[in-house]
């Protein structure tokens, strides 16, 4: 009788896999159903955005950078504009700042609604996905009404925003806030206490705060592991200090906490948007910026709190109308990099990898750029 033996085998999860949000390839080393190791292979979506931006003027960079993180394209617009404004020392009018905050927060809600939907879908519940997208649609309508596009906005520009909001925006936005706030209990009712959901989420994918910081993990993933670190509070930009909101934080660092943090952030963002709508001043929406914007030579790194963590742009100008270097940094990049650390040697199953990947909320354009 031949000797019986078992051996580890490797399985490719992706690049075409339903739950690797885009084209990420995870090479899983498996022992039966247990995952021994996971190695991410990225680059399938590499569009060399940074190189392309080096050959474009500052105004052209913004629509290109829309594609950097298309789920929250407003943040991409904003972080680049912020960097360019810092280089060119542009004072942004107050109304523009308010409009930017409204748009950023609405986009954060939209992104978290996508997170809610896709996570539920990755765990097998197909219906919450549609519910999440249903409410996201309201926000997309607001964006389309304002800037004309639903996904790649090109709205926030160097020096302000491209257009003022239409008069019907404010009432519609208030209505959307109301509707989204009223739908949140539905989401929670369908998932929060569901024993299957709890079994799949609780205690899975635990992140250690110190380790997470060392690996550059930020945003909701870091806050779920108990680090109260939100750039809107701790390294304030724009007019965030004016608003009253709480930083959502949980302490266990497992999948369930990451989910809870994001749902709570939807609530806080709704709060910020309604405060911003209340305080929306009149005035200019764009500072005087030359059409051929030429910031003086210099370099700057700015970072903002995006829905997936810290989003930053390192911008170098040589005084010409094209940037010398645009280095973008997205939260997903570090989170995907961190993924093997929390998978390795913990005996998770494939289903857990899917859940961790989903709650890390990795989207590939941000990684591959």
């Amino acid at each position, binding site marked *: 009788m031949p000797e019986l033996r078992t051996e580890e085998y490797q399985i490719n999860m992706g690049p075409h896999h339903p739950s690797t949000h885009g084209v990420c390839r995870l090479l899983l080393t498996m022992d039966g159903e247990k995952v021994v190791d996971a190695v991410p292979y*990225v*680059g399938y979506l*590499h569009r*060399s955005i*940074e*190189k*392309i931006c080096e*050959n*474009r003027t500052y105004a052209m960079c913004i629509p290109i950078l829309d594609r950097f993180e298309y789920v929250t394209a407003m943040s991409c617009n904003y972080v680049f504009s912020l960097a360019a404004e*810092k*280089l060119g020392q542009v004072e942004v009018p107050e109304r523009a700042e308010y409009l930017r905050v409204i748009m950023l927060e609405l986009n954060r809600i939209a992104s978290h609604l996508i997170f809610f939907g896709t996570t539920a879908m990755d765990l097998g519940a197909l219906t919450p996905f549609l519910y999440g997208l249903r409410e996201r649609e309201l926000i997309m309508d607001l964006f389309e009404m304002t800037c004309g596009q639903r996904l790649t906005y090109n709205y926030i520009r160097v020096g302000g925003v491209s257009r003022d909001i239409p008069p019907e925006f404010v009432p519609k936005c208030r209505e959307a806030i109301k509707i989204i706030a009223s739908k949140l209990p539905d989401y929670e009712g369908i998932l929060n206490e569901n024993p299957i959901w709890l079994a799949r989420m609780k205690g899975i994918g635990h992140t250690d705060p110190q380790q997470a*910081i*060392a*690996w*550059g*993990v*930020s945003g909701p993933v870091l806050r779920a592991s108990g*680090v109260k*670190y939100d750039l809107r509070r*701790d*390294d304030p930009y724009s007019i965030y200090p004016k608003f009253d909101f709480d930083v959502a934080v949980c302490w266990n660092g497992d999948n369930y906490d990451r989910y809870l943090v994001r749902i709570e952030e939807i609530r806080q963002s709704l709060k910020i948007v309604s405060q911003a709508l209340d305080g929306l001043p009149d005035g200019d929406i764009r500072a005087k910026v030359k059409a051929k914007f030429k910031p*003086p*030579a*210099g*370099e*700057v*790194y700015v*970072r903002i709190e995006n829905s997936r963590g*810290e989003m*930053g742009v*390192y911008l*170098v100008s*040589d005084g010409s109308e094209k940037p*010398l*270097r645009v*280095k973008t*940094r997205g939260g997903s*990049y*570090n989170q995907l*990099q961190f993924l093997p*650390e929390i998978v390795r040697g913990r005996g998770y199953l494939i289903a857990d990898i899917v859940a961790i990947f989903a709650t890390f909320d990795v989207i590939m354009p941000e990684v*591959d*750029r």
Partner: protein
Amino acid sequence: MTQQELTAYILANYDGKLTLLDTGRAEPMFELKPDDLLEVTRRLRDDPQLKFDFLCNMGGVDTGQRLEVVYSIASTTKHLRMDFKVVLGYENPSIETITEIWPAANWYEREMYELYGIEVKNHPDMRPLLLPEDWNQGFPMRKNWDAPDFIRMPEL
């Protein structure tokens, strides 16, 4: 600690290893010699006054005259942030890895190597990251790289 205090603190306590660059911008930018990299970054991380425990961003820059490696670091507890850079020449640029100080640098260094050709010494896992495994067309982010047409704008 404000930005000025941080600058003063670093200039006073780091034996001149971090020199302040005048880049005409709001935030200070320091320069570091490649040989001091590991020692200074470790001190920056472990300094109880600073506690730079978070690597925000790092990446290569090709200015046309020289190569630079820029590090942006932050402290999650002290709410500080600073940038420093290491200047390298075009001839065999190489730099020490900082993955043992901030593991987050892992992928950034891989990316920097394949896009700029800046060699990273002692890196634990030096595989190409974004580019295909059989990429042999040079270092695409360098300014002298012969870019395909779709990346350059047509001359008007």
